[in-house]
């Protein structure tokens, strides 16, 4: 167990001394002004990108650049004010990073919409995406406002389980359409459709975190040794394995491989963090290799994907394999044509990837127009989001918060890896959305919610101990256990639980 330190450094001694020497509120800068400054950068980059696209494609600044800039600024500003009001100690980087990614995504969608006549199956996406982004930020503000303390979510551990399973199973009851390309991952109401997997990602994390928090000691300690590995008792592990297996089965049935992999990885990571037992990693790796081998040999959809990964150009040959797609090959050519510095926004031809240029393969569009340089920057931004989330997990004082933050961050990281790895040909393509960048309402809204929850956790984590007199009784009893996370510098454990509960 390590010592908590508000500045994130590994200097517990200093942190302790500082906390002891001065009143707590002065020692913890809330960094809201930093956030505002970063937010200004995060807005300037997409707005300049928007101007760039207009100049490159039409030779003039886009007519509605002011409206666009103002719109983005109002959305981001509202989010910022909500953070100031409801989560003043939240991590200052997460909101700007998410705003930057969302803004860049909007610019690229707008640019691809402008090339719309060149795309087959084109559906203009910018307006919708803007609406969804607005909705996402509204949800972000809603979470900030309504979720007084992330530990409230613990109450909904088993409800979360049910909701996640219902969400995951729902698409199976809706008919698939031609344009869904094999995956049954949508719930449809008329022209309105959502992708429940994106929300299930968050809700399932809540369930895993809540369940593991309660069971972690039993899982870690009450186990039998078997072949050099510690195996937990069935009644401890049972429920979570059942839920996890169910979700994987549902997803395999719906041929949503990316999500299967994501939930599997999420499960292993959270189990490992909760129990601190490396054997889980070994189990996880063995099971994932085994599962991958079984699925790869039995499921034709997966076989196609693996063959496309091994030979992306086969689809261009005189005898393309059945159900093969040119998209990976097109994306690789798109990336190659972009080269080191890219063609410049609006000057590439990533629409050759066809409709997927806007959705699954939007990274190809970025790679072509912003080049290697731009992609590296985008990966860095994603990496920063993940690392800020994991930093939040380190900082969190309660095991539930830790598990929640680890789960959400690693789910985000796994999703980025699975999508970007698939698009760039590192691993077989599994079909998920690039968080914030890709066209897709559910994805944008869900990821804004994810960022909101992470920020809520970080707010609680970074919040200095309140004056003992003003503190009402905690809403949720601290779970008993040998593993206590109260930072020694912040007084009695009861006082460290946050002021807003």
């Amino acid at each position: 167990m390590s010592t908590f330190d508000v500045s994130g450094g590994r200097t517990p001694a200093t942190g302790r001394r500082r906390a002891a020497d001065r009143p707590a509120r002065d020692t913890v800068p809330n960094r809201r002004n930093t956030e505002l400054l970063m937010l200004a950068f995060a807005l300037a980059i997409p707005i300049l990108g928007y101007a760039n696209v207009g100049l490159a494609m039409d030779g003039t600044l886009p007519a509605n650049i002011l409206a666009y800039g103002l719109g983005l600024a109002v959305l981001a500003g509202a989010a910022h004010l909500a953070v100031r009001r409801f989560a003043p100690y939240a991590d200052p980087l997460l909101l700007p990073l998410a705003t930057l990614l969302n803004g860049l995504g909007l610019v690229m969608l707008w640019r691809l919409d402008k090339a719309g006549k060149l795309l087959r199956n084109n559906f203009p996406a910018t307006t919708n995406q803007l609406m969804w982004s607005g909705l996402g930020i509204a949800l972000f503000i809603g979470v900030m406002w309504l979720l007084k303390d992330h530990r409230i979510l613990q109450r909904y551990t088993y409800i979360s389980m049910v909701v996640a399973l219902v969400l995951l199973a729902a698409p199976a009851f809706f008919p698939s359409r031609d344009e869904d390309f094999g995956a049954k991952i949508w719930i449809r109401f008329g022209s309105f459709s959502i992708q429940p997997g994106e929300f299930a990602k968050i809700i399932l994390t809540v369930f895993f975190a809540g369940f593991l928090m309660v069971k972690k000691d039993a899982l870690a300690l009450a186990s039998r040794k078997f072949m050099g590995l510690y195996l937990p008792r069935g009644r401890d592990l049972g429920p979570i394995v059942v839920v996890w297996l169910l979700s994987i089965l549902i997803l395999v049935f719906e041929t949503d491989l990316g999500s299967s992999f994501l939930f599997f990885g999420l499960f292993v990571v959270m189990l490992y963090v909760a129990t601190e037992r490396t054997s889980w990693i070994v189990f996880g790796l063995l099971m994932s290799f085994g599962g991958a081998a079984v699925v790869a040999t039995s499921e034709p959809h997966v076989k196609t994907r693996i063959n496309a990964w091994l030979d992306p150009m086969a689809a261009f040959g005189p005898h393309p394999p059945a159900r093969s797609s040119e998209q990976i090959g097109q994306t690789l050519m798109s990336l190659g044509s972009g080269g080191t510095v890219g063609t410049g926004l609006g000057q590439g031809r990533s629409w050759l990837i066809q409709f997927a240029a806007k959705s699954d393969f939007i990274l190809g569009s970025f790679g072509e127009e912003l080049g290697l340089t731009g992609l590296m920057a985008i990966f860095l931004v994603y990496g920063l989001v993940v690392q800020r989330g994991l930093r939040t997990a380190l900082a969190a004082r309660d095991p539930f918060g830790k598990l929640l933050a680890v789960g959400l961050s690693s789910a985000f990281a796994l999703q980025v890896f699975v999508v970007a790895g698939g698009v760039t040909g590192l691993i077989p393509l599994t079909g998920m959305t690039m968080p914030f960048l890709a066209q897709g309402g559910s994805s944008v809204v869900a990821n804004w919610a994810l960022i909101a929850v992470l920020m809520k956790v970080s707010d609680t984590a970074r919040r200095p101990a309140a004056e003992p007199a003003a503190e009402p009784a905690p809403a949720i009893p601290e779970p008993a256990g040998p593993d206590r996370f109260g930072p020694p510098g912040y007084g009695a454990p009861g006082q460290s639980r946050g002021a807003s509960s």
Partner: protein
Amino acid sequence: MNKPIRRVSIFCLVLILALMLRVNWVQGVQAASWANNQHNERVKYDRYAYPRGNIIVGGQPVTKSDFVNGLRYKYKRSWVDGPMYAPVTGYSSQIFDASQLEKLEDGVLSGTDSRLFFHNTLDMLTGKPKQGGDVVTTIDPKVQKAGFEGLGNRKGAAVAIDPRTGAILGLVSTPSYDPGTFAGGSDADSAAWTALQNDPNQPMLNRALRQTYPPGSTFKLVTAATAFESGKFKNPGDTTETPETYILPGTSTPLVNDSPDEPCTNATLASAMALSCNTVFGKIGAELGGDALRAQAEKFGFNNDKVDVPIRAAASYYPSGSSPDGTAMDAIGQHDTRATPLEMAMVAAAIANNGSLMQPYLVSQEGSAGNAISTHSEHQLSQAVSPATAQKLQQLMEGVVKDGTGKRAAIPGVTVGGKTGTAQHGQDNAGKPFAWFVSYAKDSSGKQVAVAVVVEDGAAQSSEISGGSLAAPIAKSMMQAALGK
């Protein structure tokens, strides 16, 4: 729980790092191979993303780049006098690729050639719109026009060369096509392309460079050259000891002349050339032997499959291992001997240039004026015959024009040498004969030009076809145009 969180954190960093390494691999190491992949349509679009450079003839561009602002292609190629210059320029189509100079010089024309890098960078820095480089040809528009109009609607080809340098002054092939009709990507362009592909007259065949014909009597120049070079004959006035009826060796078949009353019996080389006596040159060829003839023919450029001007010409062919009677026929340009119009122009040019055969070339300069990235330097392809032999051959050829079968090529005040040919072809010579004329002209100021003309099916009846009547006037007008007479 913090230790596993730190490990998860490192794991996530490794994931991101793996992605970064992967894009470095794809966009850094492999970038060029993906960018130039044969399935990468960007290569096609790039070619028309900004104005293409021009092909220059006589100081004027014969090509244009029209701004069409299409969805995929911003510019479209068009040509000035397309059919006339098509054998020179080739085509450059948005959907049907490109050919000849448009294809071979694509790097320069589309501005991607690395030698244009400095210029392009300069343009980029000064804010000038990107533009491909130009290709300056050696073609003389007057010569080209004379040949094109001379051939008219007949099938054939004509090549004019400056013998001293090898510069190609005219390169005509008829019937021709307008590359502009299928430069775009519309349905009409596709229809035009299909129609041209299916046209039995093969308008897209570059007959001047890519079609070989039996050279007929024009090949007697090579036979005569071998005779002089081998020492078998010393002077044009030497008699040839030819019988009235020459029986092909090893057979009972007589070799016949065009008309039986021609005085070919025991004729001198000069009069045999002037009258184009088959018996005389057939007999000389058989006596010299196939190997000697082939060696001489190869010095003139036969059997060379790498004559690049820079458009690669089809290899002209002189056979090896013919039987004696076959060699007699080979020696008069029948049997297995084949030649392109370019090859016969090279023969005439080498003779006119005192035996020195210059490398024929079409591109004198790449890059626009003031920004040339390369300029052609002339060089000798071979010393085809000694200067003394060349002069004797010139006497023979001038005799042909003065009082032989090539009178129609005579130009007052200009030294003109020529050789007619009427080549039989087809099964049992059933096809209409090809009318040939190869010639050169020199004026008093030292200007020179060598020309070869072939007309495939110039007249309704075979008997009316002869090199002298059909091809010589075309050669004459091209020579006049070249010398400015």
